[in-house]
């Protein structure tokens, strides 16, 4: 978190740099079937973030040592394409993408009915081709749409949204500029039908009241995004 408190990011009317109110999310589009050779796929744009996710499987789990006798394993890889950021992202091993892959896997393994496919593997490839802010949320949300598109049984889809704080004001879904000057970030992975959580991270500085506000913004936004995900799966593109 940058925490440059003297940069004014919210005007006297409470509007943000891109004209949104504090609880508003950026524009989202969702499209399925975008990787024709995959079993399920999703392209999601969220502001100027763009994630493309492909799902392959269930298929044979190899190497054999990753197999589980009683359930399937998820092989989740989150990656940023070299041209996805302002400064070129060098391809290859990177601690940040390893961590995001892991927490995304932990979230998705909580909803996929793994015990239906013992000894098999489901591969989920999350590629960020354009990054703004909040790519982990876009990746996780798009991955649940791709899993549904592949017909993988789940108890619910995961909707991931983040809220944060700028100029001591709690706002939902930080964009790039806000993220640079942000004072806190609270990404959550929400099951929209039950309000339960499968993913939670936070960094920065929030009072108990601010934390509650950020939490509520995320819960509300998750319902809005969930409707778009369902629309996209029912047919064609959702705006």
């Amino acid at each position, binding site marked *: 978190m940058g925490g440059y408190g003297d940069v004014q990011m919210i005007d006297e009317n409470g509007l943000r740099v891109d004209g949104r109110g504090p609880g508003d999310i950026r524009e989202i589009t969702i499209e399925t079937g*975008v*990787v*024709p*050779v*995959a079993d399920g796929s999703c392209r999601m744009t969220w502001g*100027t973030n*763009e994630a*493309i*996710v*492909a799902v*392959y499987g269930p*298929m044979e789990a190899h190497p054999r040592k990753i197999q589980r006798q009683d359930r399937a394993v998820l092989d989740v*890889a989150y*990656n940023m*394409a*070299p*041209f*996805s*950021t*302002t*400064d*070129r992202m060098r*391809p*290859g091993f990177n601690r940040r993408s390893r961590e995001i892959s892991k927490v995304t896997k932990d979230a998705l393994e909580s909803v996929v009915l793994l015990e239906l496919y013992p000894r098999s593997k489901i*591969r989920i*490839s999350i*590629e960020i*081709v*354009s*990054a703004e802010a909040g790519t982990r949320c876009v990746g996780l949300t798009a991955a649940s749409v791709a899993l549904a598109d592949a017909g993988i049984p789940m108890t619910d889809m995961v909707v991931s949204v983040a809220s944060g704080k700028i100029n001591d004001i709690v706002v939902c879904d930080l964009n790039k500029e806000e993220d640079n000057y942000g004072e806190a970030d609270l990404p959550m992975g929400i099951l929209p039908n039950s309000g339960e959580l499968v993913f939670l991270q936070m960094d920065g500085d929030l009072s108990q009241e601010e934390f509650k506000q950020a939490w509520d913004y995320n819960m509300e936004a998750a319902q809005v995004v969930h409707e778009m995900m369902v629309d996209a799966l029912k047919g064609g593109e959702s705006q």
Partner: protein
Amino acid sequence: MTIPIVPKLLRAHLGELAANDARIDGRDRWEGRELEVEHSVLPRAEGSARVRMGDTIVFAGVKFQIMQPYPDRPNQGGLMCSAEVRPIAGRHWEAGPPSPESIELGRVVDRGIRESGCIDVDSLCIIPGEKAWQVILDLFAISDDGNLFDAFALAGITALRNATIPAERFEVGEDEPLMLSKTPIMCSYHRVGGRFIYDASGREELGGDERIHITLGDDDNVHSLQKGLKGIFTADEFEEIMSHACDRTKELRKLIS
């Protein structure tokens, strides 16, 4: 990349089709798949393109960095081209360090662009001996249904043609378009069912044999050639392919110009 088990049935079927001068998806021998080319599709890249050939989909993105010129060429910038085929692109592509296949892809596309001289490397110099632009072309596969070579080459040259040098961001002058003096285009041919065909699909690659890649410049000048995989071909076969490449590269060049 794991080597898929080549189904004997597929090979036999492709052989029968070839005997009747037919292809598995109904195309004729020299016909390409439906092609879509879009440029400036990636907001974070200084130049970009998305190419779709049938069910093969790729992105190309151009980024710029400031480099110190090489001591023996103090007045020149550079071009770097790399290809990545990650597991998203197909079930036979695996995670890990770049496979020999994806390295070959990047290098063959790189040679076609570099050797055509379409980028004037002298114009990339900012301060002789100190600062010059390095143009980085990244090729990225989203869906592999065969012939990634041609898709990468076409996306690559389209992205470069639409690239802007971000001089303002690096505080070395004003933004300006990257100038390209030529448009090299690649055409690839695979031996399937005993004879060469143009623009192989995934199934044709799987049940086929050797492949030949040809990059031609504006005046049909040859800029790069590559023969890949096990196989033997004759001079007559090559002549037939080259003559098709001369016609097809002109059509493709018109499409992106």
